[in-house]
């Protein structure tokens, strides 16, 4: 399959997902999703990552700001090969109304560096425990790519494009749901240890029984390695 055909297929798929969601959507929300990630490399290929994420909604049927939640995620893992990493994590979710949810995460990912871009496959399982709802089990797969916008490798003081597509299969109280995420970010490398990204993250879920929910986030991500 040549690259032009691949690009066309990808564009068609993206268009189909987005246009499908727009036609059939029942609930549209818009908001901000800033995150800060701090990553530390440890001896013998161990690593940790701390992520803080905050969700703020600005529109649902009408403009109305509301703070939704803040997530704190801690992940620790080890390299299994030059391009494969295994990690486990714990996430605590502080809801606006005072509820606290706990999520346990297991993930494996494989990152391949090509001449002009990087491709990452991430498989993740998570279990979310809440005091007022049944446990939610999810299995998810994310394909993401990073493409330098100047030159063949991504260096300091350069811009890049990051695009990702994720499929989340969730089961809660014996009910299945699917969530599809498409995200596109433009990033800037401040230094080999610091990256900043801004872009959109579109999440469509409640495909199966409920009204379709289409969430459109404006994201700002900071990544810092120690």
């Amino acid at each position, binding site marked *: 399959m040549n690259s032009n055909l691949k690009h066309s297929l990808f564009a068609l798929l993206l268009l189909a997902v987005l246009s499908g969601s727009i036609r059939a959507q029942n609930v549209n929300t818009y908001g901000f999703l800033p995150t800060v990630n701090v990553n530390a490399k440890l001896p013998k*290929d161990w690593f940790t990552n701390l992520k803080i994420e905050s969700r703020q909604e600005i529109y649902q049927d009408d403009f109305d700001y509301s703070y939704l939640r803040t997530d704190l995620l801690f992940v620790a893992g080890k390299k299994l090969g030059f391009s494969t990493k295994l990690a486990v994590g714990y996430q605590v979710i502080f809801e606006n109304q005072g509820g606290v949810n706990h999520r346990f995460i297991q993930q494996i990912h494989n990152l391949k560096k090509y001449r002009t871009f990087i491709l990452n496959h991430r498989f993740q399982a998570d279990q979310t425990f809440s005091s007022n709802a049944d446990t939610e089990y999810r299995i998810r797969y994310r394909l993401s790519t990073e493409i330098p916008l100047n030159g063949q*490798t991504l260096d300091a*003081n350069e811009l890049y494009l990051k695009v*990702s597509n994720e499929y989340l299969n969730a089961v809660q109280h014996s009910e299945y749901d699917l969530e599809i995420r498409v995200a596109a970010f433009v990033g800037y490398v401040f230094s*080999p240890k*610091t990256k900043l990204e801004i872009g959109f993250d579109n999440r469509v879920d409640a495909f199966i029984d409920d009204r379709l929910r289409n969430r459109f986030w404006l994201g700002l991500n900071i990544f*810092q390695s120690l």
Partner: protein
Amino acid sequence: MNRLPPIICLIFISLSSYAQLKFEKEERIKQEDVPVGAVRFVDSMQLSGRIKWFKEIGYNKISYEAKTKHQGKRLSIEFSEEGIFEDAEVEIKSAEITQVAFKKISDYLQEAHAKFKINKVQIQYSGDTHCILNYFLREADEKSLTINYEIVITTKTDGAFVMYEYLFGKNGVLIQKSRVTSRMTDNLEF
């Protein structure tokens, strides 16, 4: 300052660290931004493939590189800041290294690393520019050229996966070894 939320403090810490570091970078440039000598040299090689030009800014060196495909293989030609030819590298398979040299290289790598994988092999041509030109124009063989092999491997050292770039001479004698620093990819992983 103590009124700032922790998240804002983290942002400031992240961005301020950028000024304290020096970097190495490569950027795509237009042909008109390349020293004339380098462009003339590449033109005289009569390469049929599309030429892409890059500027490489190192810790204490600036160089220019032309990249293209030549006879189905990736070719890169490196020049100094003044546009003077330095070397030409062609990506090859391990099997294309001469048998004698490959045995010596393999013996060295097996002794140095319990387990390793060869990721990339390049044959590097340098020497007199006329000889280089004649070789690429198929008017001379490679006997008059200086030939080295650049080999990138992945291995495990002290319990961690690392990448090394080796430079071996024509006969498989080690010339140089350097560790390849891996780039930050946290933004794709988390």
